[in-house]
């Protein structure tokens, strides 16, 4: 099977999982007690006739399998449903809030990769020396600390005690500076970076710790390969060996971990957005669930699941493109 066919094959494989996600979200929302129309009316006394009219308008009077079919056909056409609670299409509500979350998650990954890769390489190079022990302690503490507590501690130290960084909200670099009350683009961008630093570290620490562990193990393994020994025997300087021979092959598993951890990072964004009062998808999810806004909750769950599935597929495909050793011939 060629690369192109492998790509198609992998994309097709994702379809059953996406259908599964839609079934789970639909089932959870339908198992829930209380129906959305009555919730929207918030206990007001209205006659049954009106309720039935509203139900008919949103297709809620249909049997379950018909409603699921309607939901599915909507999804295929990119229609995520209509929030009865907010009286707006779910897709619009989510688009408004997607920017902050993407900014947060991407910057957390940038932070994690920019710290984990050098530290992991250093730890592997100085194996069992102080630098290695320090990196292992950092990794251990990183995987053992709740991200939201890191956020709280960062706020207490840098916002409350030192007063050097803001503790809440984000400034969006894609907005015009006037909207945030800034005089020019330079000030605007500096402000958006200042707002981003603390939440980025809080969300990125767990990723950094996991990636650093993987990077260290992979580097140790690739430094033990025969071609590295051969390069050493030829007198190739250690720096060149690290940079050219060992480094490249050690990076592949990192790509996989980044893809697989996407789901943890998106879940973590819910917590971090709460700690730092950021109006992203995470907050939107919490608001939707508090208001029992079923359609919106279903939409968010569906999109988060889809992002993860697509992320994994992209990881797999890019893996096949980057590493010539990967056989994408038959299954597994």
């Amino acid at each position, binding site marked *: 099977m060629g690369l192109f066919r492998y790509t198609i094959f992998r994309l097709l494989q994702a379809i059953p999982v996406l259908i*599964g996600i839609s079934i789970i979200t639909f089932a959870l929302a339908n198992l829930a007690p209380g129906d959305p129309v009555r919730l929207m009316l918030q206990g007001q006394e209205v006659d049954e006739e009106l309720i039935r009219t509203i139900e008919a308008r949103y297709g809620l009077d249909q049997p379950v399998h018909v409603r699921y079919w309607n939901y599915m056909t909507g999804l295929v056409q990119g229609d995520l449903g209509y929030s009865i609670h907010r009286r707006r299409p779910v897709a619009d509500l989510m688009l408004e809030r997607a920017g902050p979350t993407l900014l947060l998650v991407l910057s957390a990954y940038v932070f994690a990769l920019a710290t984990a890769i050098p530290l992991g390489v250093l730890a592997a190079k100085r194996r*069992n020396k102080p630098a290695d022990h320090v990196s292992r302690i950092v990794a251990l503490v990183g995987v053992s600390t709740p991200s939201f507590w890191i956020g*709280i501690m960062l706020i207490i130290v840098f916002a409350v005690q030192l007063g050097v960084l803001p503790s809440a909200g984000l400034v969006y670099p894609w907005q015009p500076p006037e909207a945030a009350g800034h005089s020019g683009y330079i000030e605007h961008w500096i402000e958006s970076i200042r707002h981003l630093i603390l939440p980025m570290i809080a969300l990125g620490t767990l990723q950094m710790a996991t990636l650093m562990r993987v990077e260290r193990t992979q580097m140790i393994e690739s430094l033990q390969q025969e071609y590295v020994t051969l390069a050493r025997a030829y007198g190739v300087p250690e720096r060149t060996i690290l940079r050219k021979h060992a480094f490249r092959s050690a990076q592949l598993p990192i790509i996989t971990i980044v893809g697989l951890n996407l789901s943890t990072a998106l879940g973590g964004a819910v917590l971090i957005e709460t700690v730092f009062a950021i109006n992203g998808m995470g907050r939107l999810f919490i608001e939707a669930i508090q208001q029992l806004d079923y359609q919106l909750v279903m939409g968010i769950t569906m999109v988060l699941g889809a992002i993860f599935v697509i992320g994994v597929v992209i990881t797999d495909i890019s893996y096949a493109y980057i590493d010539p050793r990967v056989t994408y011939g038959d299954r597994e």
Partner: protein
Amino acid sequence: MATTESQLEDQEPGAHAEGDTADEAVETRVGWRYTLAKVRRDATARIGFYIVAIVLFIAAFAAVDSNLSRLTFGAVSDYAAAEALPIFDHPTRMPPPGEGNPNQPPAFLDGGTLSSPLGTDPQGRDYFTRVIYGSQVSVSVGIFSTAIGLIGGTIIGSVAGYYGGRIDDVLMRAVETLYAIPPLVLIIVFIVFISGGSPDIRFAVVGVGLTFIPVFARIIRSRVLSVREMDYIEAARAAGVKDRNIIRRHVIPNSFAPVMVYATLQIGVTILIVAGLSFLGYGAQPPTPDWGEMLRIAHGRYMHSNIWLSIWPGLAILVTIMGFNLFGDGLQDALDPRIKE
């Protein structure tokens, strides 16, 4: 035929461990002893073991000790009634009026007293007591949730791995689907929709447990794939033992070792997730002293006025999870020595 089958089943578990056809079983048993010996020699694993042991001890005996030692466990008077209650139903732990000042700093600062070594919370409750009691909620939630994931994952994983083919495909696809939605989001949806909008720690336990089924199923399945090729399985099948009994008596016991390691690590992850749930308000509910719940209150209004409210529960979570991680890592290194230096 019926007698042969039951005879075979009766003697089977012990028999194949000693018989020489059962290489795999012998290996796991020796492996366990060898593993424990290695863990004992590994310094980090030992530290982890001690931390876990201390936390478990505190969680188990805090309630028993609370009315014995006033200095250690702070304001005590109404705890005696609480002890009789099941673990998830702690009432408000409020000292009698006048006994504790609200937001008192820890003992090593000005205004602190030795009777409340970590200070008091906004309602005047002794914070040390609450942090100690928090270990009960966290540890029991961690263990129960992991057990649910372990049992569910073992059943699904062993059935999928043993039968293979279509059953395997369907089960594993279903399980991977659960894996795709961010666990925290899926658990909150589960808790809120199942409980009808009034969350409770019990729903959190079940929800967290369900989301762990995929990982356990996957590990068990990969072990089962190799175990099912063993001669003793073939022998049992030839003797007419029912599939259900083969899975229960031979496949599962012989696939279990790596899963136990994973379960240890998973308890730490569970505590982390439940802390997050409580922090968002979907785990333990207010009067219950839970670390995540305490952080929720501290984050809401007291980050400026009383930073100690944020510090202690977080440190407790950190130390507990670190213990489970160190111990689990040690077990893993002992079982899989490939990467060990």
